[in-house]
């Protein structure tokens, strides 16, 4: 019997794959770690339960194995609550109970026969790493992107080396089988599904740090979080995307950009070399003279050049005096001008102009608190924007000399750990009359106020722990006792908070590059994005902006939030995507410096100069 509650939870898995990285130090789902297939991770089990609830798959031998390997350890609950506030443990339990009841009632368990192709694939990768059981296949068949249709593959394979990837491609070519490569089992833009074969690179996670060359040699299964963690052990940092995103896949897709792109660049700035398996199954090395020229950029789009099986990622030095600050602003124009100023003056390593949707969502452990925090930042403090800067002592001193109010690391920590009391009724009410001509954030940023805020907010892991459900309180208290949880440098490097943006609903991001010296154009674009979203009654908000190449260009993200299981919202989102593409396309025709994600796709190895200055 399907549990309605569990099915509802299962339907909301966003496929962010955060359950596949140990971002909270809880350890990983033991079954997932042992078996590699997505189906063995909580994400896959959520999809399996959804599939059972919708009669998409029968109970198979593999499904029984998957259900029985779950120990109900609860790691998934802690990880997923942190990100999305979902409680997958109920689904894990329901899946086990469903299978147990099925077996107890002596109902049939489907055994899926193999075929010649599967046999050959297993010869290459081993019996445990190639499958055609629907319980494996279905977890690679869908993603929450509104333009994708479900595609059930015939095979899922977990290669362990470049040689195996090469052999798999050749088998596919010989048998006329379409294939796709799926990194961490995650996909949010619908490009990694195939009705033929899906390769999951989860076994190829090797990282070697070449300290003398400032490089990390990584396999295609290495996540951003794993790379940053390893680089961090050597006092280094890479430019990476979201923590669960795979680094090679990111470069393949759009190139890596982050708030560190201010200093570390984007596109070809992030690597020195890469190895591929081409469409013919033969390997090539990007630095070979005869290799395809992936440094160039094709403005009308380009197909995938092959499968990246190894990349040499550039690493950058860090200094012990790095720290983060948040500079509040009441208008986008002022904040954008400040960002450009910082970029042009080479101040700061990481720079991001954030809206309060991000700020409040990131620092709040629950959606309810995030909603109150957003209102508080916008209305009470009068700071709808904040410029986040990670920099060394010299950078921070330079910013202080610019005479702007600053939320430094100490105040940030206070605001995060005291957040439930900061936005609570009584204190918030008292501040109401102070929302006058001077924005209240200026008051908060005064040194003399710190002690008062400390007394009022009693910031502590216990205080922030009060915001979460009782059974998770102790876990959150331990979690927020770690310095990293309020350390802007660590948080910005690992980006473990950024997946919280999908807590309310799945996020469909519209992003690309814009000319930072034309803030009116950027403001007009943001206004258009909002107008289009509002017209279709889809929640939307400004995301972030980061200067690139000394403030000449910037990366801009605007987000739409949809329930990816709601056909009406999907339909409306499809219209939004069409309209926003039209809007951006029209602007691209007449304005230099706009380059949108749809044209950059598959060209992430390009030199940034090849696409930023066309």
């Amino acid at each position, binding site marked *: 019997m399907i549990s309605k509650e569990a099915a509802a939870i299962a339907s909301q898995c966003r496929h962010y794959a955060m359950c596949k990285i140990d971002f909270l130090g809880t350890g990983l789902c033991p079954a997932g770690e042992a078996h590699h297939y997505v189906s063995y991770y909580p994400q896959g089990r959520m999809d399996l339960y959804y599939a059972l609830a919708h009669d998409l798959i029968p109970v198979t031998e593999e499904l029984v194995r998957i259900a029985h390997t779950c120990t109900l350890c609860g790691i998934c609950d802690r990880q997923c609550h942190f990100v999305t506030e979902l409680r997958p443990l109920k689904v894990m339990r329901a899946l086990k109970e469903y299978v147990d009841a099925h077996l107890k009632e002596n109902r049939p368990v489907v055994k899926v026969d193999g075929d010649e192709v599967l046999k050959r694939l297993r010869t290459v990768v081993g019996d445990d790493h190639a499958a055609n059981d629907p319980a494996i296949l279905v977890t690679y068949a869908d993603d929450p992107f509104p333009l994708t249709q479900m595609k059930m593959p015939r095979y899922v394979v977990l290669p362990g080396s470049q040689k195996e990837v090469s052999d798999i491609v050749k088998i596919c070519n010989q048998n006329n089988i379409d294939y796709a490569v799926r990194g961490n089992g995650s996909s949010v833009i619908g490009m990694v599904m195939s009705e033929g074969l899906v390769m999951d690179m989860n076994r190829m996670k090797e990282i070697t740090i070449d300290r003398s060359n400032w490089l990390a040699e990584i396999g295609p299964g290495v996540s951003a979080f794993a790379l940053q963690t390893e680089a961090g052990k050597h006092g280094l940092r890479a430019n990476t995307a979201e923590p669960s995103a795979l680094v090679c896949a990111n470069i393949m897709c759009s190139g890596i950009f982050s708030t560190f792109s201010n200093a570390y660049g984007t596109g070809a700035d992030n690597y020195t070399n890469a190895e591929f398996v081409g469409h013919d199954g033969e390997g090539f090395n990007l630095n070979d003279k005869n290799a395809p020229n992936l440094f160039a950029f094709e403005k009308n789009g380009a197909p995938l050049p092959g499968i990246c099986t190894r990349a040499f990622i550039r690493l950058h030095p860090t200094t012990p005096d790095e720290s983060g600050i948040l500079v509040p602003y009441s208008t986008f124009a002022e904040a954008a001008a400040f960002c450009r100023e910082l970029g042009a003056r080479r101040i700061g390593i990481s720079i991001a102009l954030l809206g309060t949707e991000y700020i409040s969502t990131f620092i709040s452990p629950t959606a309810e608190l995030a909603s109150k925090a957003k209102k508080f930042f916008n209305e009470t403090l009068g700071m709808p924007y904040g410029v986040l800067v990670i920099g060394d002592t010299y950078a921070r001193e330079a910013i202080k000399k610019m005479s702007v109010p600053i939320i430094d690391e100490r105040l940030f920590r206070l605001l995060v750990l005291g957040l439930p009391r900061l936005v609570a009724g009584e204190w918030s009410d008292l501040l*109401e*009359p102070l929302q006058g001509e001077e924005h209240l954030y200026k008051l908060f940023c005064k040194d003399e106020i710190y002690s*008062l805020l*400390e007394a009022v907010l009693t910031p502590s892991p216990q205080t922030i722990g009060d915001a979460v459900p009782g059974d998770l309180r102790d876990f959150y208290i331990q979690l927020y006792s770690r310095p990293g949880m309020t350390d802007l440098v660590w948080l910005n490097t690992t980006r473990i908070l950024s997946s919280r943006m999908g807590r309310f609903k799945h996020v469909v991001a519209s992003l690309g590059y814009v000319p930072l010296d034309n803030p009116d154009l950027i403001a007009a674009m943001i206004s258009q994005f909002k107008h289009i979203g509002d017209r279709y009654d889809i929640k939307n908000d400004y995301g972030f902006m980061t200067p690139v190449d000394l403030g000449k260009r910037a990366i801009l993200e605007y987000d739409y939030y949809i329930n990816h299981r709601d056909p009406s919202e999907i339909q409306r989102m499809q219209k939004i995507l069409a309209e926003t593409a039209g809007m951006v396309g029209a602007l691209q025709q007449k304005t230099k410096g706009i380059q949108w994600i749809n044209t950059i796709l598959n060209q992430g190895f390009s030199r940034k100069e090849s696409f930023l200055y066309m």
Partner: protein
Amino acid sequence: MKISRREILKKRENKESVFLVTGGTGFIGSHIAVELLGKGYAVVLVCRPGKGLSARERVDRLLAWFQISGRPEVSRLEVIEGFIDRPGLGLAAREYERLSERVDEIIHCAANTAFPEKKRKEVETANIKPLENLLALAARGRRKGGSYFFHHISTAYVAGKRTGICREELMNTHEFHNVYEETKYYAERYVWEKYPTEGIRVNIYRPSIVYGHSETGRTFRFNALYFPIKTALFLKRVYETDIKENQGKKARQMGVRMENDGAVYLPIRLERKPGSFINLIPIDFFIDAFFAIMEESLEGDIFHIVSPAPKRLEEIIAYGQEVFKIKGIRTVDKESFEQEPVNGLEILFNSYLEIYRPYLGDTRWFASEKTGVILKKRNITCPDFDKDRFSRCIKYALEVDWGRKL
């Protein structure tokens, strides 16, 4: 054409006058409406819905607060859901027509009292825009014999940045402390100039700061003076907890301490202009004065409804410190204030003071001869805002948790 004095008196005496009250869910408007009902008049409130409540629900809540729900006089109350800042008050044509024919006198209390410049647009919309719409309604009614009187609730602070004596006459200034003063100033001029041209008589009433009931302390608005007091009590509690439960580490950092007599010492210096006052009047006095003026002034005029004995900030601080066992809060002049470094408490409290400085440290003196004559005739005096009244007001505020329990 104006209605005759005799007709006004006759209609009022026979309780035939129907009053339209705007701002009927506000502090002053609701008190006036309830008093009108109590006097036997029929009252129409045009209210907008808000905070998830219909106009009727909002009014019903207020009637409960006034403890008159279900009383016979409430049957004379009509609530119309409308928007006075929209043409035709946002009403259907037939409803608008009916209203214009029914109303005899309009008491315009609705106002936005926000000060910040960033709220200029909404304050202008609330304080200016309705006057055109109400004039259109009144003019239409006047042509059919109704709408003969417009009572405009203004504020003593239309005087803006003027200092010294401010007379009960149309003010002439161009400098204001905030957008509230400015819009109320222009609202007065509009009313004074435009309404009489349609044969409508106009009284302008200018209260100073209105607080709760002088005997019971009851109010449902806890803004202005209530805020710094509420904040002082909140902070006293914060530091008391710190001292009792956390060895007073945060208190020591701020220079806060517990005195031997149990009082909490909060080191707060408030910058104050010498020779400045706060003009406070209780709501019951305002209501008495308003009705006395309404009944006596039939030709139309301008009246200050203010306290003849404004208080000094020090007096109110003394009340608060004594009642709540707080020490350390004191006023100093600008020079003394700047001689020592400021602490966080001082920054916070002086921020409050900065917003309300024109009213808490007032150097304007509001002449009230015209009002005085009427009040004397009616034997009405303004109760002094003494320690007992202060205590009653704050006691009530605490009882209802500064309005949260209402």
